[in-house]
């Protein structure tokens, strides 16, 4: 997808912008007002000074000439004020627009990501995805203010100033258009073309440099032991050199662009002055107008100066758009979203011939898995980390599609189950507990949006957190901190168990349910969990069983996973097979 054409890459984001047409138009108008105030201020001042000088000369020679000083004086004061006010208003208004766009962008991307499967999410997590995602969003939210509004305003300035000059000296207007229009085209398209590849690579180089730095930092021990720190640093320096090679290139291209702006505008001034002087000598315009015209051209520089920098970096914007488009596309390949409902009561599970191979993995994650769970049964799936337990859980919760084989839950092919029914009837307590930067209540209500406070307290009581909750000055409104950081690991796990309790699933998958809890808590929770699990089918995922207090309650059968394959457990505490 890396060579997605520029227009196609940016099109979805331009369409997102187009949903706020009024704001965009007003923003551009305010920008234009600022610019025209600047042009007016300089041109009118020049006219006024030249007219004053000519009048002064006339008076000195004893001619009966006069100059109305109030209208131009007022005009100059007006432009001075309107430039300031328009500029302030424009910045405020357009930043508001950009922040609105940011909200739109986030909302839209979040919706796309919400439909990603586990594989895409896991892949993204591995490569510092969040870091890049936010950078990409920041790049795109300035699309309007850096790449869309300025060229429009600059084009308008070029055309209008040329038209204004043409009013007095038609030839000069045409000549200006012939000079400034190609310059405008170069400052946008030409700069973008020159900087495209380098500015795009720059982002990738920086990303690589970051990965290499993380590698270096996590591997300091081994690198030092083997004396290969210098060797690894050389790799780091190579990525840095690549980054700086591209920065140099884009820097020079952008510098060329800004030097070009001043050169072209300067030449425009010279040309306007020459042609205006000719017209003056022929008597078709007055002396003061002759001074005004080149000064009006001079002020166009302010509009053109905004173009080279952002357009040289267009490749970076394009790269960001391509990456975000890829996220949206990946979310399109959702698999199996049917409309069948799961039956009530405990759910049966049947996995047949399941195979799963992660892309880029050396060996398959799961091979020939045959697994059956009758309604109400509690099966323990044991195995070392990486043996494939989490993959089984991901398959059963439809977070991943199998490469082959069939999955039946409650007698219905999993792919045909409606999303809502699946999420209501199949619950999982994973290894990773996600708590959101919000209140306790909000985190609990994730499981039961309509639950009353009393019911939330019951849930806390069930996991033995009610007493702790009572000591909190803000009770259920207590914030849990970023990622639940205000809680201990054990409290977070118990909170996740409380979330489970608030629901009524027919199949429960518990991944190391007692990890990180102390013996006393486990003893208390185990019997409660045992009672709550009655009438539900249960799949425990555990590292190892030893028949002790930390084993989950009432296991009816154990199956063992070794490197993605089910084996018969020798000397197991529990029935096998």
């Amino acid at each position, binding site marked *: 997808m890396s060579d997605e054409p520029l227009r196609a890459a940016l099109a979805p984001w331009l369409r997102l912008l187009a949903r706020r047409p009024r704001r965009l138009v007003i923003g551009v108008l305010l920008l234009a007002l600022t610019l025209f105030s600047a042009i007016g201020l*300089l041109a009118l*001042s020049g006219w006024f*000074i*030249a*007219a*004053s*000088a000519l009048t*002064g000369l006339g008076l000195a020679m004893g001619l009966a000439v006069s100059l109305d*000083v109030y209208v131009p004086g007022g005009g100059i004061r007006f*432009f*001075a004020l309107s*430039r*300031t006010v328009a*500029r*302030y208003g424009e910045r*405020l208004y357009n930043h508001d627009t950009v*922040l609105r766009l*940011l909200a739109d962008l986030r909302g839209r991307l*979040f919706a796309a990501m*919400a439909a990603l499967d586990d594989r895409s999410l896991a892949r993204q997590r591995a490569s510092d995805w*969040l870091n890049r995602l936010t950078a990409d969003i920041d790049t795109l939210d300035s699309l309007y203010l850096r790449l869309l509004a300025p060229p429009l305003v600059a084009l308008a300035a070029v055309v209008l100033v040329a038209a204004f000059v043409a009013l007095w000296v038609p030839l000069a207007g045409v000549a200006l258009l012939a000079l400034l229009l190609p310059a405008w085209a170069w400052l946008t398209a030409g700069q973008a073309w020159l900087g495209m590849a380098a500015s795009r690579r720059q982002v990738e180089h920086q990303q690589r440099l*970051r*990965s290499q*730095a*993380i*590698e270096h*930092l996590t*591997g*300091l*021990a*081994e690198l030092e*032991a083997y004396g290969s*720190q210098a*060797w690894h640093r050389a790799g780091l320096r190579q990525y840095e050199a690549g980054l700086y090679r591209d*920065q140099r290139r884009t820097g020079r291209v952008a*510098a060329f662009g800004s*030097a070009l702006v*001043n*050169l072209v505008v300067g030449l425009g001034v*010279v040309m306007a002055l*020459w042609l205006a*002087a000719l017209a003056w*000598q022929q008597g078709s315009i007055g002396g003061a107008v*002759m*001074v005004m015209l080149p000064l009006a051209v001079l002020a166009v520089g302010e509009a053109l100066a905004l173009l080279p920098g952002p357009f040289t970096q267009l490749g970076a914007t394009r790269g960001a758009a391509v990456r975000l488009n890829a996220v949206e596309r990946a979310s399109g390949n959702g698999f199996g979203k049917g409309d069948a409902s799961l039956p009530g009561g405990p759910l049966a599970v049947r996995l047949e011939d399941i195979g799963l191979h992660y892309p*880029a*993995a050396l*060996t398959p994650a799961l091979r020939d898995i045959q697994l059956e769970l009758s309604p109400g049964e509690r099966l323990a799936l044991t195995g*070392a*980390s*990486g043996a494939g337990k989490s993959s089984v859980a991901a398959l059963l919760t439809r977070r991943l599609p199998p490469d082959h084989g069939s999955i039946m839950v409650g007698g219905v092919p999993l792919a045909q189950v409606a999303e809502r029914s699946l*999420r*209501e009837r199949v*619950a999982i307590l*994973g290894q990773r507990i*996600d708590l959101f930067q919000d209140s306790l209540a909000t985190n609990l209500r*994730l499981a039961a949006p309509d639950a009353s406070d009393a019911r939330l307290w019951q849930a806390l009581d069930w996991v033995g957190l009610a007493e702790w909750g009572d000591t909190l000055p803000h009770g259920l409104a207590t914030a849990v901190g*970023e*990622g639940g950081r205000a809680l201990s690991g054990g409290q977070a796990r118990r909170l996740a168990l409380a979330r489970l309790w608030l629901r009524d699933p027919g199949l429960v998958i518990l991944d190391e349910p007692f990890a990180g809890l102390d013996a006393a808590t486990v003893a208390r929770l185990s019997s409660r969990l045992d009672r709550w699990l009655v009438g539900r089918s249960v799949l425990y995922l555990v590292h190892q069983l030893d028949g002790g207090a930390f084993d989950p309650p009432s296991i009816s059968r154990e199956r063992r996973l070794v*490197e993605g394959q089910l084996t018969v457990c020798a000397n197991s505490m529990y029935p096998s097979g």
Partner: protein
Amino acid sequence: MTSDAHAASTPRRWLAAHAAGQRHWLGLAAAAGIAVGALTVAQMALLAWIVSRLLVAGEPLGALGWAFLALVVVLLARALCQWGQEVAGQEASLRIRRAIRSELLDHLAAMGPVRAGARHSAGLASQLVEQVEALDGYFARFLPQLRLSVAIPLLILLVVAWLDWLAALFLLLAAPLIPLFMALVGMGAERLNRDQFAAVSRLSGHFLDRVRGIATLQLFHRTREAGIEVHAAADRYRRLSMRTLRVAFLSSAVLEFFASVSIAVVAIYVGFGLLGYIDLGPAAELSLFSGLLVLLLAPEFFQPLRSLAQHYHDRAAALGAADGMLALLAEPLRRADGGAALPSSDERLLALEGVTLSHPGRGQVLGPLSIAVTAGETLVVSGPSGAGKSALLQLLAGFVTPDQGARRVREPLRIAWMDQRPLLIHGSLADNLRLAAPQASEAELQQALERAGLAELVAALPRGIDTGLGERGSGLSGGQAQRLALARVFLSDAELVLLDEPTASLDEASEARVVASLRRLAGEGRALVIATHHPALMAMAERRLALDAGRVCHSAGGRADER
């Protein structure tokens, strides 16, 4: 610079010291910028002169052709200088950023794996990459502009004063008012910022928080509601930010206001002066040339200040980044080993004598203890978690220096290290092996894979040893990663192999394979020190050392005596 010098250094001084290292490029940037300013004055003077010759002296256009030509030459020279200014500034910034990154990496290496490893690697990486890059604007644009914002207004002021001192007085009066008003407004913005900071930062983190937990939201079927919430939070963030921006933008509005008003005042003053309405001071001597030139120079007088204001946030970003970097550079370095080298005739490879070690915040974690490792022996260190097993291994490796006592080695001692999470680099399997021996031949790699029990798996891969690994070894299972690390040990010529819980989180089958490989390693005559509590590994021991709360509580077997 020593670390003490850093401790005393402020971010500003530290940045200035780095800038001094590239004073040539920065000086070039400033010189080019001043040339741009001088050429601008020349350009405006030529314009005003041409106009005045035409209108006042009534010279024909043809006679002024040379002046037009001179104007074009000035424009070309000015464009060239402008290009030079930007390029020189960028070059300085590139070189400084490279030097700073190198300084940080040197410091991390000198801190050693233990002290440096105690920091969050993602945070450190962002310091090394994003934060260093965040210094760009400061060095490339802000610093050169800082000099220009003094030099160019001064130059223009001198020219204007020579033309008409009253007009120069207008400019001079406006100039100090600008920073004053900007500072006043800036302070207000800062207070507002502080008040809203917590709310704003919470809202800006909201999106990331929800994205991080997106899998959970999916499992609870709550993504739609969360999506609406994401949008609402972003909108609240907007409203709060706008409140700050309303004040913050005032500061640039002040600048705009003074610049515009000064131009207007100068224009009206010059116009009235030319009309003869003003009898005051030099107004009567104004000509079209001097009047027009004063008008043309008035905006240029404010331009450098406007540019500086635009780059002002670069300075804030750089100071923020430098603050974090200085904190890192202030971290103490590893001291040199205390003890004299062991004689080459000694059968001990390495000895720790009366060492103690403490970690910040945890107090003493090890010692005092003395221990020696003899060539070719297998020593197993056991003990409950927190007993100091890892600390002992780190001391043996020299990753950290003991607080007291000495570490003595038989030079040159080659060490191999392996822990629970081996380093896997982005590259092929071969690259990962060569990390231990960059010069190793293909046959040696093959042999190492065989000994580590990976040969069969690698042979089955279509691209064999050239198979690429994803970032941080994605694609390898835990057992495969451990065996790859072991292959690395086989490939190295290390006499002493330090293994920290090498089989933690492996299943029995993988563990058995690793143990078999370790036995082969011991069989090659290498000394092994293994920290573990796994029975299968403990059974390999020729000598055992049980640690409890940082002290040896039991030792058994072995050839070397311990004191």
